[in-house]
């Protein structure tokens, strides 16, 4: 069956226990007498569909499901991840300090080019704030990543954060696709020259090749 989307990005949420990662993704609810079956077994991941610049993007979003408590987040969890939300709690200084450790963990286990974003969660609890917004911004600048303060509880910036991360991954992917096409094009050029050495001083020019669509498309299959 034909794919009905343009991109698929796997995203992870990382950070200390209790910073509200689970709330950013999930919102387990139960009343006093009945529990839902789902809140007992828990949610593993979600698929969400968004649209950016007329491109349909599927996001597969994973939570660490408490693994972080035991510092057992390993390569397996990071495998295939293209984006990571680093989450701290603005009312917990320690969770902010630990972001550095999480970044080290990511550098050791995830792909080197994984897109990262820093989130200061629980921004609705301003009276209990221990980490100023400026410090969050500063840390993000240090690592060259984007930053937002969010509130999963009050639904502030959560969707925006995911859109921003997805948009950055998309831009990176598209840039890479252009580079790859240029690479293929050059390979084709070399092949062409090797197979058909120019005779009589006639050199194949870029414009000539560009117009030979069928030939180009054959090359891109190589």
């Amino acid at each position, binding site marked *: 069956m034909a794919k009905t989307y343009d991109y698929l990005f796997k995203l992870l949420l990382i950070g200390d226990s209790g910073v509200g990662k689970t709330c950013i993704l*999930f919102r387990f609810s139960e009343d006093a007498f*009945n529990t839902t*079956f789902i809140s007992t077994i828990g949610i*593993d991941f979600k*698929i969400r569909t968004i649209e950016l610049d007329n491109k349909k993007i599927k996001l597969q979003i994973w939570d660490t499901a408490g693994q972080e408590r035991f510092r057992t987040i390993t390569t397996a969890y990071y495998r295939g991840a293209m984006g990571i939300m680093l989450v701290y709690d603005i009312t917990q200084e320690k969770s902010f300090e630990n972001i550095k450790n999480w970044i080290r963990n990511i550098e050791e286990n995830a792909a080197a080019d994984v897109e990262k974003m820093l989130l200061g969660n629980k921004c609705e609890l301003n009276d209990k704030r221990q980490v100023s917004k400026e410090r969050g911004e500063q840390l993000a600048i240090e690592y060259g990543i984007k930053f937002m303060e969010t509130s999963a509880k009050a639904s502030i910036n959560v969707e925006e954060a995911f859109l921003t991360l997805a948009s950055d991954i998309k831009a990176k992917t598209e840039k890479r696709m252009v580079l790859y096409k240029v690479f293929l094009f050059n390979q084709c050029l070399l092949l062409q020259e090797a197979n058909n050495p120019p005779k009589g001083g006639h050199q194949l020019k870029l414009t000539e090749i560009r117009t030979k669509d069928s030939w180009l498309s054959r090359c891109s299959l190589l």
Partner: protein
Amino acid sequence: MTEVDNFTEQIINDKNKTNVRCQFCNSLMLKALEGKYCEQEIDVPLMEQKKDSAVDSLNTETLRHFWQIDDMMTFENIGFSHTVDGRKFLVCADCERGPVGYHELATKRCYLALQRVVHSDK
């Protein structure tokens, strides 16, 4: 929730005629014509369980009518539970009510129960 009597009018060429949505929050789960109709008898846990019931003593009901989805990425918005006996249960990605169906790890197929969703384009 879609009544059993109305199932036949939801099917066109073996596919779902309209969009499939959450019966509680109207979240869009599956677009029209993306699911294949299939019948099978499967026990699916009820959406409400008694507080003290353990996962191995579930209250279930037998469901017969499903939309089969071969690639999970076909869904617009959906949540997957942790694995229980080779299955993951499907829930609404927005309000998290469920199970609305299940995902079979062995075949990688998903089955969305007609009885636990609504069929509406809006």
